[in-house]
């Protein structure tokens, strides 16, 4: 008996069915084991192949996924990766992303069950992003790239099938979001004038990481006119400073994904990433009087009693608590746009590095095959 057959000795771990693609998909839809799109049936043979790059024990959970608190074991994640259309070399990043989401600071329970329309955004940094051809350029947040589409989809299927994020009973989102189908992107490090996100967070440049953010879908900042850092940042700050985001009412870390052209304009006069964040923070605020009376009295004064307890209508309310709470990355192809990505607010992003079994950083996913 091989390892997977041994793990599947529990009769509830598998079922026999006719090898008929349409009928199997009907069954998966009926049982709610899908995101609504057809899936590749996770046969034992396919799941076993999917585990080729798994360097962890197949039955040891990388985390517990709320609200069902299901065990996210590598072999269950592999089954969801098969269903999503992944290649075996994608599985290490899926496991890493789920592990990062299960960190307490991320508040996956809140993100899964909330009425807010957030979804975990996976940002990939380092050489593995190029190795796996994760799109970081034109249409990076959109369709058309297998790795982005299937890694993000596998994570979503795991959140549903293992975590129980079923609409109306485990996922209580008022609207949901197209980002809940798949939400995976790489940073365009080659086109960035700054250190990439993982280096900013203390990882060596030749390592590969995933950063997970409990995020809304991207919202565009169109600025084809500004020719100075202050101009671009002023336009971004104006878009960021709105009354309805969760970030302003909690302690969120919204993502500012600058296109390479916007990043070049901001960096042209020697602005570091930290400078850009500070300038954004100084401009991204709203006068208290812009909120409704009920929100001022019942939310803002209650949540920020020291700063806003007795504050007048002109008192500035910053969008984030500290300049460093802005997550600044460079993404996208040609064009003078920036993507503003608000978050769930009651969540902190988590970054995890890809490692070999011996604990050292993996410089390539190929190091994990048979590791």
């Amino acid at each position, binding site marked *: 008996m091989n390892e997977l057959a041994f793990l599947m000795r529990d009769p509830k771990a598998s079922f026999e069915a006719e090898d008929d693609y349409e009928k199997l998909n009907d069954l998966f839809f009926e049982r709610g084991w899908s995101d609504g799109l057809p899936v590749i049936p996770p046969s034992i043979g396919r799941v076993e192949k999917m585990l080729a790059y798994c360097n962890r024990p197949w039955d040891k959970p990388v985390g517990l996924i709320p*609200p*069902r*608190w299901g065990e996210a074991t590598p072999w269950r994640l592999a089954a969801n990766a098969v269903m999503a259309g992944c290649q075996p070399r994608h599985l290490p990043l899926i496991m890493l992303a789920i592990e990062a989401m299960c960190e307490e600071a991320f508040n996956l329970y809140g993100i899964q*069950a909330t009425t807010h329309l957030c979804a975990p955004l996976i940002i990939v940094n380092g050489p593995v992003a190029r190795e796996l051809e994760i799109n970081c350029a034109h249409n990076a947040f959109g369709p058309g790239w297998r790795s982005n589409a299937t890694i993000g989809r596998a994570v979503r299927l795991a959140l549903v099938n293992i975590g*129980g994020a079923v609409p*109306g*009973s*485990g996922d*209580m989102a008022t609207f949901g979001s197209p980002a809940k189908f798949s939400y995976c992107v790489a940073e365009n490090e080659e086109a960035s004038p700054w250190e990439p996100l993982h280096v900013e967070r203390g990882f060596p440049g030749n390592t590969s990481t995933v950063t997970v953010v409990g995020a809304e879908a991207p919202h565009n900042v169109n600025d084809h006119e500004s020719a100075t850092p202050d101009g671009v940042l002023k336009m971004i700050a104006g878009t960021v400073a709105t009354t309805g985001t969760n970030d302003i009412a909690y302690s969120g870390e919204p993502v500012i994904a600058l296109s390479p052209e916007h990043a070049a304009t901001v960096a042209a006069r020697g602005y570091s990433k930290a400078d850009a964040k500070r300038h954004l923070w100084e401009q991204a605020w709203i006068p208290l009087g812009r909120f409704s009376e*009920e929100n001022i009295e019942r939310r803002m004064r209650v949540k920020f009693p020291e700063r806003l307890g007795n504050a007048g209508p002109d008192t500035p309310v910053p969008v984030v608590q500290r300049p460093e709470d802005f997550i600044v990355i460079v993404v996208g192809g040609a064009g003078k746009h920036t993507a503003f990505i608000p978050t769930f607010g009651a969540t902190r992003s988590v970054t995890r590095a890809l490692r070999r079994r011996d604990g050292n950083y993996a410089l390539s996913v190929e190091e994990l095959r048979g590791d």
Partner: protein
Amino acid sequence: MAELSRRGLATAVVCSDAFLSLARNQAGVFGIPEMPLIVIPHPLGGIPMTEVKARAERALSQLLDQLREFPR
């Protein structure tokens, strides 16, 4: 709450009717499928104090019923 219930304390969870399905699922996940639920009308946010008080009264009567039946 499930942990408190396991320790033998009288426990109940207040939830609004729109979230009843989530609450029932969660009670099952935490091993107390029979967890008493005190149900109030949705929504709880954005309502005036008079309606908050009306919900509290509905919750209180259910709470008293639960306590009268305790222990089951």
